[in-house]
């Protein structure tokens, strides 16, 4: 696969979704970067383990972490950064294939595709939530440490 091309295309796609969702102008490039990192992690995982469910989980996890860091940096809601990054991971082709097989009366194959699409969307959701909980734990601990330090210096 062609890494620079995929990186560029996913950057462009996530940025374009940023325009459709009307993200604030100065965060458009960051949105593109979130989408790019999510897609590249997804592809790498897919090439190594050949399992799109795990790869989607990893991609969504990274998207969520990067979005969280950017949200802290820009002081804006995290949703602004995570949404454009999630779109490339949505199992559009699986859902399409399921639909196509239903129309062609291949119901067994359709069920296989549909359950795969369901698994992938579940994995994306789990990746998002896991990363968020981890980041919350991390930042809570960090905030406590800072508070303790300030308490010590005041005394």
């Amino acid at each position, binding site marked *: 696969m062609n890494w620079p091309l995929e990186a560029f295309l996913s950057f462009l796609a996530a940025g374009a*979704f940023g325009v*459709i*969702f009307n993200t604030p102008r100065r965060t458009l490039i960051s949105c593109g970067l979130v989408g790019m990192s999510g897609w590249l992690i997804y592809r790498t995982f897919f090439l190594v383990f050949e399992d799109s469910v795990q790869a989607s989980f990893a991609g969504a996890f990274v998207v969520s972490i990067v979005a969280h860091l950017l949200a802290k940096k820009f002081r*804006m*809601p995290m949703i602004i950064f995570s949404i454009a990054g999630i779109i490339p991971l949505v199992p559009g*082709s699986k859902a*399409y294939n399921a639909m*196509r097989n239903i*129309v062609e009366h291949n119901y067994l194959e359709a069920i296989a595709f549909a359950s795969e699409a369901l698994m992938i969307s579940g994995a994306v959701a789990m990746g998002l939530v896991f990363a968020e909980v981890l980041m919350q734990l991390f930042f809570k601990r960090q905030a406590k440490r800072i508070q303790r330090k300030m308490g010590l210096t005041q005394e």
Partner: protein
Amino acid sequence: MTQIGETRRELALDCFLLAGRIMMESGAETYRVEDTMIRMAVSQNMVNSHCFVTPTGIMFSPSEELATRFVRINNRSTDLERVALVNSVSRKLVAGEYTVQQAYDELLIIDQTNYRFNIWLQILAASVASGCFLILLGGSWIDLPFAFVFGGIGFIIVETILEETRVKIFAEFIGSFVVGILASIAVYTGFATDLDTLIIGSIMPLVPGLLITNAVRDLMAGHFVSGLSKGAEAFLTAFAIGAGIAVVLSF
């Protein structure tokens, strides 16, 4: 004196509800809306406030003696710029940089201003996204111009029908139906090569990504009512897109 206190509290309530309504209409997560409203209320000494946000209405009870207020949310779209702006206003109010009056005026301006990108720029973005996804999903370069054009056309159709009728499922059905027909024509006349990737790439701008993510995050945060209803909305959208394509493919 109590009269003044009364009007001040009324103004504060208007301010919170307006902030909540703008955020909900612009596609923020339910738990963030509740969090923002409660934070604003606490900063105005309404410690015992309760707030219940659903995708179609917001209830806010400031305290035990004051009356509970309700606003209806009629149309929801995605406009993350407004979410960010309301968020910054609420941050400033909580930090004490704004008075309630200033915050309310600011929110009124946000409510009335149109922050959207130019519609042609949005269509261009939809086209670019379609083209990018076609290549990312393994389509051939020959199909690229078709995905570019069809993605834009699908987006235009959905936006125009939405403006005319406000029935989302119908707009998405027609949009994906037209995309499916155009893609089939392009493939059967021999200009394009792969029907599957062409269709998937072209309908990508219509995929309800925001709704799915929001639904899951609301469910995880314990907001089952809004999580389920947003999930239903996402499912309906996906169903409309799928049905539009299925009708074309069944011929």
